[in-house]
């Protein structure tokens, strides 16, 4: 029986010729990553197992959640991983000012490439599937074990195959596609499984679109999301990384639990309503509803803080003014993106429109800091979760959307259609 792309990568890392869904394996790890929330908690657990990390080039620490440090406890946590990185001589430690949001900085800095087996103590670690890697989120004990031994147990997942065809419309991006998909299959629609994206439509999705889609695989309960490595992905890795990548392809006779076809041309700008990423509504359905007034807009995060996201938001906001009742935060996900925004004049566009532009951080996404909401407030956010209380008060509401819907809504003061507000 053939293997899926994910199964092939796992088999290779477990030293096996083949694996089947449900099999428990121990696999070798190419990258083990933690942040300023999960990293500090992992250190005492790590010390029960080892004094030195298994490979100083493969253990990666990124303080990004509560940084720049939001309070004394967060500062102590960041300090603990900073000192650990120094003491262990880690090659990849990303300090504020040279860093960014973990899932944006790792591909950008070339730390992760196709064919690798990667774990991160952050659920959105599935992002690197866009490069054709097996990449999944784990907890603190798992990450500490990975840091100490370079190995971890996995249950080999079965897979749902998504066959993407067609070309998305001008105001539709990876965010709309993935919210559309989660809306279709539900927030546990791929529980314990791989989401394997295939089909000719992938050529019409940029790398930034693919990062956004793989990033939200976890929101359908998936173990990982993964894209084939095509010319675009190879070009991206050659530009960003010195590492050797390896290309795996699913066998022609691989078995899938389900095959779902998506015509990208039919996907509309799509918003996930409170309180689940699967509560998808198209912009057309929203326009037929009573207007949804908003108080805040967030454009950024590991889901949508990349260069193309900034460009798409800026194209809408250019020459426009943010609605007087709305606060807007734009957060480029890395320093490099921040600088590119300056070079392209996008920061001027954002600031002139009345947006606050913040330094790279996860910040408001999980109600950490820089945009926590009060009771009754509503936010259109390009982040990935709209759970109860995720961005602050339990009575605040989050609507997940693309950068273009977010920018259009910022101007209109209500959830708005970028096709009507838009600058293109």
């Amino acid at each position: 029986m053939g293997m899926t792309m994910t199964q092939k990568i796992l088999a290779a890392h477990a030293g096996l010729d083949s694996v089947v869904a449900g099999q428990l394996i121990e696999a070798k790890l190419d990258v083990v990553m933690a942040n300023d929330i999960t990293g500090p908690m992992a250190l005492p657990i790590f010390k029960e197992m080892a004094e030195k990390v298994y490979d100083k080039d493969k253990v990666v620490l990124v303080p990004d959640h509560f940084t720049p440090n939001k309070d004394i406890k967060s500062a102590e946590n960041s300090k603990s991983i900073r000192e650990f990185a120094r003491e262990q001589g880690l090659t990849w430690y990303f300090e504020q000012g040279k860093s960014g949001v973990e899932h944006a900085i790792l591909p950008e800095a070339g730390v992760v490439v196709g064919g690798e087996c990667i774990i991160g103590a952050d659920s959105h670690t599935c992002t690197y599937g866009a490069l054709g890697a097996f990449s999944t989120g784990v907890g603190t004990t798992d990450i500490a074990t990975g840091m100490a031994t370079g190995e971890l147990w996995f249950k080999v997942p079965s897979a749902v195959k998504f066959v993407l065809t067609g070309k998305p419309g001008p105001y539709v991006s990876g965010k709309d596609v993935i919210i559309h998909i989660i809306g279709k299959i539900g927030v546990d629609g791929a529980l314990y499984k791989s989401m394997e994206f295939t089909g000719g439509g992938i050529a019409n999705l940029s790398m930034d679109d693919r990062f956004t889609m793989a990033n939200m695989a976890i929101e359908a309960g998936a173990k990982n999301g993964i894209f084939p490595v095509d010319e675009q992905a190879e070009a991206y890795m050659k530009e960003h990384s010195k590492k050797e990548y390896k290309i795996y392809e699913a066998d022609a006779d691989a078995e899938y639990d389900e095959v779902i076809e998506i015509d990208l041309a039919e996907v509309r700008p799509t918003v996930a309503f409170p309180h689940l990423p699967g509560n998808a509504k198209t912009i057309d359905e929203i326009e037929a509803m009573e207007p949804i007034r908003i108080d805040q807009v967030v454009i950024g995060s590991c889901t949508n803080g990349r260069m193309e996201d900034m460009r798409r938001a800026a194209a809408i906001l250019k020459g426009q003014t943010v609605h007087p009742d709305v606060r807007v935060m734009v957060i480029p996900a890395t320093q490099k993106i921040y600088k590119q925004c300056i070079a392209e004049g996008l920061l001027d566009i954002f600031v002139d429109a009345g947006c606050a532009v913040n330094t790279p951080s996860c910040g408001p996404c999980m109600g950490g800091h820089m945009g926590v909401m009060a009771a009754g407030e509503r936010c259109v956010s390009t982040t990935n979760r709209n759970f109860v209380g995720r961005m602050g008060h339990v009575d605040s509401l989050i609507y997940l959307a693309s950068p273009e819907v977010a920018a259009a809504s910022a101007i209109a003061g209500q959830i708005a259609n970028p096709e009507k507000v838009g600058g293109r």
Partner: protein
Amino acid sequence: MRATGHVFKYGDNVDTDVIIPARYLNSFDAQELASHAMADIDPEFVNRVKPGDMIVANKNFGCGSSREHAPLCLKTAGVSCVIAETFARIFYRNAINIGLPIIECPEAAKGIEAGDEVEVDFDSGMIYNRTKGTEFKGQPFPEFMQKLIAAGGLVKYTNSKR
């Protein structure tokens, strides 16, 4: 090993943000985390929970973030077992790794109500609803996971191999 306690009952998709909101994640002190357990879904939980009590929920319990703070705060608050129709995968791993017993059992999730007194036999996977006089058989763990649990969690298992 057995546990007995009263049940707190919740629905589908109980996410880690409501189990332990991110505003408390600047600490990983187990006692401090336990004092905020279930804060955003059931603010009364921490005042009412007693050692041995159980959580019973429907689909996809523990979805969302990878924060191990979630099973840790429940275990430290005194929760002896979480029974659900299904668990989100990272929560499932984390619970096993830190030694919080969890059982997948759709029938029990349907047949147990808030306040019921429930006894669980972890060796057999049997769940007894003492209030209603009903019983359910939970999904047994795969052999590898039983080894992990018997070793006392992933850290001890890892150390025992070397």
